[in-house]
């Protein structure tokens, strides 16, 4: 439905903590036509330059709160609103090298009236500033 808007390149950058580059971040939108509680946001598969990011290294910030990806199944109240850009933060000491990176994102949505839910996906080549 909104697959082509899922990866938001403007938010792509390395993140620092205490002077060290600790990882990188990416803007994401869900492919579905309504906002959902986070427990209905299913498996999230992110690949950068062909390499899949481990689940335990990802967290997402939506509505001003940050959640580890592995804990979304328990969030039955907090919502990811329709069209909102969530900030995905990936733990990766040293971050990514400046320059072009191929980013792939597939998202499973657990939608009650669709048997087995559905998947949306997007792929973009993004530039990481130095």
């Amino acid at each position: 439905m909104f697959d082509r808007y899922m990866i938001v390149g403007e938010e792509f950058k390395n993140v620092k903590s205490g002077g060290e580059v600790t990882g990188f971040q990416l803007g994401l939108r869900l492919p579905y036509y309504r906002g959902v509680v986070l427990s209905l946001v299913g498996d999230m598969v992110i690949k950068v330059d062909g390499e899949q990011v481990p689940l335990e290294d990802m967290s997402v910030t939506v509505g001003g709160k940050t959640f580890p990806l592995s804990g979304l199944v328990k969030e039955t109240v907090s919502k990811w609103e329709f069209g909102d850009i969530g900030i995905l933060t990936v733990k990766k000491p040293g971050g990514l090298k400046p320059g072009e990176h191929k980013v792939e994102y597939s998202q499973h949505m657990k939608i009650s009236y669709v048997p087995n839910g559905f998947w949306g996906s997007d792929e973009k080549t993004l530039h990481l500033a130095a």
Partner: protein
Amino acid sequence: MSDSNKIKRGVSLYSFQEEYFLRKMTLEDILAALADMGIHGIEIIGDQMIPGYPDVTPAFYDNWHKWLAKYNHTPVCLDMFLDWNKFDGRVMTFDEKVESVKSDIRVAHELGCTVIRVISKTEPEVLAASAEYAEKHNVRLGVEIHSPMHFDHPYIQSLIDIYEKTKSPYLGFVPDMGIFVRRFPRVIWERWVRDGMRPEIAAEIVKAYDTHTGVAEIAETVKAMGGTAREIGASHTIQHFVDANPKRILDYSKYLFHIHAKFYEMLPNYREYSIPYEEVVPIFDQAGFNGYISSEYEGNRHIQDAFEVDSREQVRRQHEMFKELLHEA
């Protein structure tokens, strides 16, 4: 305002999902655009444009009522979902499902809506258990009849059974006009071709739908033509579309609460490419329906790769058609 015995025109704000999603239009922008077009019946999807739904803030209600007054709009319908799968490792209990419907009823009441579009597949017993509460809040619960279902589907018939037993005038239906797709939508197969489907394969799939021949076997046909896995996968789409007989509406007149006027592509001559509204609208008139026919534009997802989506123009064209078919001066 319109004559109370006539069909009235409205819009589901779903029609503007592309612009809202991309933050090109706010909720108020959409309400203002509809007022400019002379459209005043409003339907809203809680989970789409009401932050925090169903926990709606007093500030949202204040703005909503301020905007309705400012633009002279009538709140008509709230669209709900039943997320029975939201808990980790278990499904909702019956009581939790009823409670979920009751929270939708409370919100609809606060918004001023008198109909809720109930998501398809909601259990009939859950609706029966919610009917009294709905009546208390003067909100009618209409289950959406959405393709590939139509009036004769066992689920719809099971609802009618329980409606007959319950005898509550607050339980009924919201038919979606996507059950009257006569010609396969052009915007869908043109997108397939842009995405790499060979035109002769697309033509074969569309022919099967339009002539009602070989729909069940379409995957085999495409395979025999040397179709790729992707072409075969897309071919199944036609099995989810329905070309029901619009006259069946007459059998269910007393249960009609609201109409979802689904559309894929309004042409410059004010006709929908795939749905024969000129046949369907007069039948609702004949059925004595006097609620709202509510635009539901769903073409955006099929054209957004190649064209600028203009939901406003698509809605405008549909309402020009409605005015003609409803004999509005």
